[in-house]
Structure formats: C-alpha cells, structure tokens
C-alpha cells in the first residue's frame, strides 16, 4: 500500500504555515507583500452591505404598484434619514394626507412598479480582517485578502469551538493525564490560553468563563458538558462562530483522554509565549481542524521549513488509536500485515500492529488509527 493515506494531526516544533485571510466579499487590502503583521493587525477591509428593509408602499398608500413613482419623495439611490418622509399623497384636503416615513436611515435601494415595493438599505458595516498570526505577508490577493506566513510551532486539535484569538500560553496542570480542575484556574490566567491535561469538567469551564480565560486546550471533555455549554446538541461538526466566552480545543476527543505526551511537552515548552488559536472545525469537504500556532521569534526563525508530504503509513510512525476499545492509546506502528484480518464484528479488514511504550502490542484496523504527524 505505497499510496495508502491515513488521516493525521500535526504536532510539530517547527514548521512554516500559511494562512489565507480572505474577505467574504471584495474589499480593500491594507498591507503589502513582505510587510510584518501581528495577529491583531488589520490586513483587509470590506463594507458589508447593510440590512435591507422592504416597504410595500403601494399597499400603504392604497394605490396601484405602477403609480408609486408619483407619490415618492425620494428617488432610487438617494439617501434617506430615519423618520424622513419617503412618500406622500397629495389630497385636496390636507387632513387626509398620508405620509410614509422611513423606518431606517440609509439609501433607497430599489423601487418596483410591479410589486409596489421600495427596498431601503441601511448603511454598510465595515468589516476589518485581522492577521490572525504574527508573520509576514507572503501574498496579496487583490480585493480579496492576503496570505500570512510564519515559522512556528503547530499543534492541530481534533475538535474545537469558538473563533480566532491570541494570547499568552500558560500550563494549568503538571502532567498530560491530569484533569484541568476548576481550582487550577486562577485570576492570573485572565486573557490567557490555558493548557490542560486529560479532561475539562463543566465546573472548570464555568470557572474559566468567570475569570476571563480566552482559550482552553485539553485532551477531552464530555459531550453532555459541551451540550450544556452551547445550550444545544451539536449535530454536525461545523464550528467556529460560537460565543461561549472562550475558544476551546480538544486534542484527543470526547471522554477523559490524556493529552498525547508529545503535544503536552510541546505546548508546555512554549509556556509564556504568545500563541494564536482557532476553534473552527469543519469535518467535511475542505476540512478545517482547530489549531494552536506559536510563532517563533528566535534568530533562526527566518529559515523556511517545509512540510514533507507523507507517503502512507510506515513502520515506526507514532500513532493514536481512535476507536474503542483502546481509544486514546498512543504507540508506534510495529507491523503492517498486508492480508485482510477478521475482527470481532466479523468484518474482514486491513490491520496494523501497534507497540505501546510499555512494550505490549495490539492489532487494530488501519481505519482506527491516526498518525501524529510532525518531526
């Protein structure tokens, strides 16, 4: 199986990442190629069209739709203030005068003599796109946005909620198999990203919110706690816009699962440094996984490091078992038998052998492991 592709999550001390920062609609790019930017730097700006308010003038004036131009005071594309007269009739007796006032300030977007409607548009809202990571502008996409590049340490999580944020990394536990209990969260963690261990209980989530922690990175949580946090049952893993007070990233999955030692060691080594994190997850076409990016500021950081494209799973690759009964266990590939093997469900599947650090080994379906990528 020379080509066999196994999904994997990257955990690496040093790599170069590029992040495209694209506006949802055409706008203005504010930076140039080669420019150094910070996570909070505005790199592009666009004007989101304002809200549209439809008014059925023909109905309100009691006239035919094709007559509305005779009654309108304002013309198409003209500015209008809130409560300003938009249309009026001209009766012989003033008492019977009807005035239609604009319910919002904005522009007269369109006038329809077929439906008798007038569409008003509120002023546009300015949207500023931030850099998200500290780095340099590698590419400018005219009117659309930029690509920011940085040399960094990178940890990909498996699932997250909440948007992009950045702050200082602090470690809340002493070992990757320790749960992040509420008492470990202190007021000094306000505005910071806290690294936990195997589990984040609901009480710790509440405490983090109370303190003002901006990010939490842990091995696992219980689904019921996620439901309580969100207020609904998450049906499909498309996240990133939740506003629960912090960004949450799971590195392993649901349940109590120790954080992979490599992940914990890497994050701990960078305690005190600034990191950019995103909880956005989309487990469908064009998959997005949550991530922790720690830009490197050391003198050697300028040299670009490229990721080597992996060609299938190899003996010795570090892997995580991602299905029961050994969910969350981490080991290394020690055998790649090619023949199909019958598993307890009676399915015949491709398998591989995993050896654990304690010297024991097991055989699992190849579909049930994931490679921990990154040198």
């Amino acid at each position, binding site marked *: 199986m020379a080509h066999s592709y196994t*999904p994997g999550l990257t955990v690496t001390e040093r790599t170069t990442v590029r992040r495209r920062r694209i506006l949802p609609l055409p706008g203005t790019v504010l930076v140039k190629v080669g420019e150094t930017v910070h996570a909070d730097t505005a790199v592009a700006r666009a004007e989101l069209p304002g809200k*549209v308010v439809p008014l059925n003038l023909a109905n309100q004036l009691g006239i035919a739709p094709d007559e509305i131009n005779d009654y309108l005071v304002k013309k198409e594309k003209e500015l209008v203030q809130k409560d300003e007269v938009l249309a009026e009739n001209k009766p012989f007796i003033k008492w019977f005068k009807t005035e239609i006032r604009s319910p919002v300030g904005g522009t007269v977007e369109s006038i329809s003599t077929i439906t008798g*409607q007038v569409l008003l548009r509120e002023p546009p809202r300015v949207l500023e796109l931030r850099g998200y990571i500290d780095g340099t502008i590698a590419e400018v996409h005219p009117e659309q946005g930029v690509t920011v590049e940085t040399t960094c340490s990178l940890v990909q999580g498996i699932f997250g909620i909440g948007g992009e944020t950045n702050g200082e990394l602090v470690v809340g536990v002493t070992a990757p198999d320790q749960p992040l209990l509420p008492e470990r969260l202190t007021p000094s963690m306000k505005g910071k990203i806290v690294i936990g261990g195997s589990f984040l209980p609901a009480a710790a989530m509440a405490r983090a919110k109370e303190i003002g922690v901006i990010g939490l990175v842990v091995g696992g949580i219980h689904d019921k706690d996620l439901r309580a946090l969100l207020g609904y049952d998450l*049906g499909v*893993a498309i996240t990133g816009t939740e506003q629960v007070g912090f960004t949450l990233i799971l590195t392993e999955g649901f349940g109590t699962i120790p954080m992979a030692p490599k992940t914990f060691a890497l994050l701990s080594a960078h305690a005190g440094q600034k990191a950019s994190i995103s909880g956005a997850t989309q487990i469908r076409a064009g998959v997005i996984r949550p991530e922790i990016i720690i830009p490197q500021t050391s003198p050697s950081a300028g040299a670009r490091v490229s990721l080597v494209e992996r060609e299938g799973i190899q003996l010795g690759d570090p892997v995580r078992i991602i299905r029961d009964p050994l969910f969350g266990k981490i080991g290394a590939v020690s055998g790649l038998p090619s023949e199909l093997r019958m598993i307890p469900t*009676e399915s015949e599947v491709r398998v591989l052998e995993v050896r654990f650090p304690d010297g024991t080994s097991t055989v699992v379906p190849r579909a049930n492991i994931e490679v921990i990528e990154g040198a």
Partner: protein
Amino acid sequence: MTAPHSSDQPNIERPLNVIVATDCGSTTTKAILIEKVETEYRQTYRGEAPTTVEAPFEDVTRGVLNAIAEIEELSGRTILDGDRIITPNQAAQGHPKTGVDIYVSTSSAGGGLQMMVTGVVQNMTGESAQRAALGAGAIVIDVLASNDGRLPYEKIERIRTMRPDMILMSGGTDGGAVTHVVEMAEYIAAAEPRPRFGSTYRLPLVYAGNKDAQPQVKTILGDKTALEFAENIRPVLERENLTPARNKIHDLFLEHVMQQAPGYKKLIEMADAPIMPTPAAVGVIMETIAKREGINLIGVDIGGATTDVFSVFNGVFNRTVSANLGMSYSISNVLAEAGLDNIMRWVPFTIDEQSLRNRIKNKMVRPTTIPQTLDELQIEQAIAREALRLALIHHKSLATGLKGVQQERTISDVFEQRTSGKTLIDLLKLDLIVGSGGILSHAPRRIQSMLMMVDAYEPLGVTTLSVDSIFMMPHLGVLSTVNEQAATDVFVRDCMVYLGTCIAPIGQGKDGERCTDYDLAFPDGRIEKGTLTFGDLKLFALTREQQATVTMQPAKQVDLGNGPGQSFTATMRGGVVGLMLDGRGRPLQLPSDQAARVAALTRWDQTVGLYPTTGSEL
C-alpha cells in the same frame, strides 16, 4: 438502464472492455474494476481509500488514485502512470494487463449541492421546486415562499446567511400573475447572495417560474447572479414539469459548484464522462429497477453525511435527501434528532448515556473509523435504524401528489376523508426495498442489513428486500450513461443481492397471543406449519431461485392485505437470508421496560442469527 438527467451525453467511440469507476463519497472513495469476460461484463476487483478533501492533500483526486492503486495491487493490472489513468487499454499493443478503456466517476464529496428554492405558494410551487431540486441530487437547505409566514426582511436575512450553492426560483403558472415571483426576485437581489465557495464568482440561479415574468427577473437578477432560465416547473396547476429545471441544475452544478470544491477541476479532467452527483446516479438505478420489474419500490442510500431515499410508486419517482442524517459526519445529528431513547431501544445491552454520547461524538470527529468490537457494531446499527426511519418520514412528507389541485371524486370516495397532496408511499403496496450505503452494504452478516431495514421501515404485508452487495450503485448509475450493457450486466450479476421476503401482519396483540397461522410449502416438498404469535420473529431458508407457497390465516384483528382476519395465499421467492415472518406487530412493538426490551432484542437476535455469539479475536 435509462438515460441520465444530464443533457450532455458522453460520446465514447472505442470498445469498452475494461472500465474503472469511482464514487467519491463524503468519507470514502470507492473504486471498482469492470472487465468484459467473453460476452458479459463483470465487476472483478474493488478498492477503497479515505476521501482526501482533508489537509494535507485537500484534493479529491488523491483519494481516487489511492483507491485505484488498491485495485492495481489486487488485480495485477497497471492502471496508473503516476497521477494519470492509462487509457485506452493496451491489450492491442501486447500489454493485456495495462490500462483501462474508460474512467467514470460520481461524487458527493463536496458536501453535496446545497440549494435554496423559492416558490409562490409554499405547498404548491414551493414543493414542486423542492422536488425538482431534490431530484437533481441537491440538498434543499430552505424553501422560501410568499406565504411561508416569514416577514420580507426575514426572507432576505435567510438568503444572506444560508449561502447556498445555487438557487432555484419557481412560482406562478404560465400566463398567471407575475407580482409574487417578481417580489421574490427583488428579495434575492436585495440579499446579494454569496456562494459558499469562492468570493469572486456569481451565484448560479435557475429561474423556472411563470415564463411571463422572465424579462422582469432578468432585469432584477441578471447582473447579480449567473442567471439561467428553464421551462416553468408548474406551467399549469395540474401538471409538474420538473425535468428541464433538473437538467439545468445538473449542468450548472458541473459548471460552477463542483469546480469550487477541492480538486474537482482535476477530477473532471481525469474522467471520460461528466461527473454525476452520487444521488442522481443512484436515482437512475432505482428508477430503472422499478420500470424493468413494473413494481413499487423504496430505495435508500445511507451515507456518511446524508441519507437519500428514493421511491417509485405507480411509476412516479421521488427522491429526498436528509441532509444531516448519516453515519459518520452527521451521526451526532441522528442522536440529536432521534433522541437517545429511540437509539437505545435497538441496543441489546445497557450502556450509560455519557459513554454512548461520547462514542457518537468521537465518530463524528473521526468519521473514517470502523466498529472494532461487537457492541460498537450494535450501537452503529442501532443508530442506522433511526437514521433510516427518520429519512423515510422525511421522504413520505415530500413524496406526495400535487397539492392544491381539485380532485375528481367518485361516489365511492364520498365517505373517505382524502385531501389533495396525500403521500404516495403506501407500505402495503410496496414490493421491494433496496438498501445501499456502507452500513447496509458492508454489514458483516446480510441478515443485519435485512433487519435494520425491516425495523426502520416496518414494511406491511409481503415485501422483498435487497441490498447493493458492495456499494456500487452510484458507479453503475453513471456507467449506464456511457454503456448500458456493462451497467446492466454488472447490476444483475454482481450488484443486487436479494436478501429475502418479509411477511409482516398488520395489527397488535399481547406477547404470545396468536397473530396468524401459517402453512409454508417449500419447493423440495417440505411443509412448515405453525402459529406465529405476537412478539415472534421466524426465519426460514428460501433462496432467490426457489419459490414457496405461503398460506396464512390471521387472527380476526390482524390484516395481511386482504382485510382483518381474511386468509392470504401467495407464492414468493426468498434470498440469501430467506423468508422472514415478523409477528412483532405493526406498528412495531418494543417492550418499554429496559430488561424486557433487552431480553426481546436478544431473543430476536438469536432466532435469526443476527450477531456472532462469541467474538472473533484479533
């Protein structure tokens, strides 16, 4: 096989002796090799690989090449030259094991085609538009109509936030009023809809409403969308005309939407025929079976992200997509929609809620994993039953006659409270259920597929069940567009596996009460006589090639199609599972008490040999 919906047919001149076909699913890319053996086409090898829309590849063709590489390894045939598929087959050049004659593919990996449809009256043109979009292989994310109860600004906000891949506008009969259609066009224009992918291309919009409104619609939307016109889908109140709009949707899907997803442009270039959306290809197969056999059928394709249901009743084809009912990406949504209790009722052991919830979420975030232990398999099959059940409810609500049409009534209808728009799905008139999709096609025992479908659909009376042997209906659907014989040969010989026949009396009674007496005369002279009691499930060996004569004498409140208490005699065929007598009641009765339920499930499992009693060790 019938022709597909697409308007652009491939024109392949060369003889087709070796064919490779792939289906890029949301989770797995499946490849099959079809070879002409003497005068007949046969499916010979298959391979699969994870679909690679995920980083680091983000290119669907990677998964295609991986799946084909697996076929290469198994068959010994060289198909790939680097990233290129070798065509045509090199037999004439003295290399009989090199190359293929054609490569075709279907795909649903881009998350499908997400559409918004608009109509004037929600349950008339709104529903017709929905049916047109669903039939074209789309997922309908919302139906907007003038009378949908939402205020104009809410409609505009909805269009802005949903970011569909395409919009289908309908409304008004030809020659009728144009105001409401134009009003909807104004809302769409005001919303300035942006597509999901790519910020620079214009959103495709198909207008298939009152033809008299076309000039106004062009004025309002011509500059803001990639506007295309199709014939009105409801030119008069009494008639639907869905095909032109479906063809237009399919063409625009290929032109615009698919090319935005990771790697599709390359895939389109690799393939020798247009890439068909998977559901459209499966629909072609389902329609063909119903037409060829002259039967009523329900087909289901339960995938990772969606469950597609197809039905043909009295020649009328319908298709629905339950967008977030699937076994991997959207497995968690099945839990959310069905509720934990409904899933737990199918699990033959006790498990705490927290553990089950965590397991389901872990499958959602790592969708390509497979159940390794028996209890995990049982949980997944329990969830599948609920996904199938919910998707059928959804289908029933949309597969209806035309609404808003005055029905002609005869004197015999006077006492029957019938309204227009009644569902077309009549389980008592259902002849065949066809199952496809990973969980049904790859169930370790065929009885598991049969019981999953029986439990979910609760067929009434006599119903035959079949399954796509290794999940290749999509491939054959697209193949039928280029070589009908190849598709038909493989479908009959290698694809369709008849599971058997289920006889389910309608009625309910206490466990152990008489449901029906039965007398089964088998072709080898064997006679099985007995009483089926409520709560019983019985299975008899009977192959597809054999025919048994079945005589039933139901209890007075029990109906087998001839009326309560009326006797019933018929001859019927079996399948790889056999003939199943289902005395569990209709509607299906499961004990509400936990211990009694587990005991009943265990008893049924053991009666039909659903699961191994001791697990094979790795």
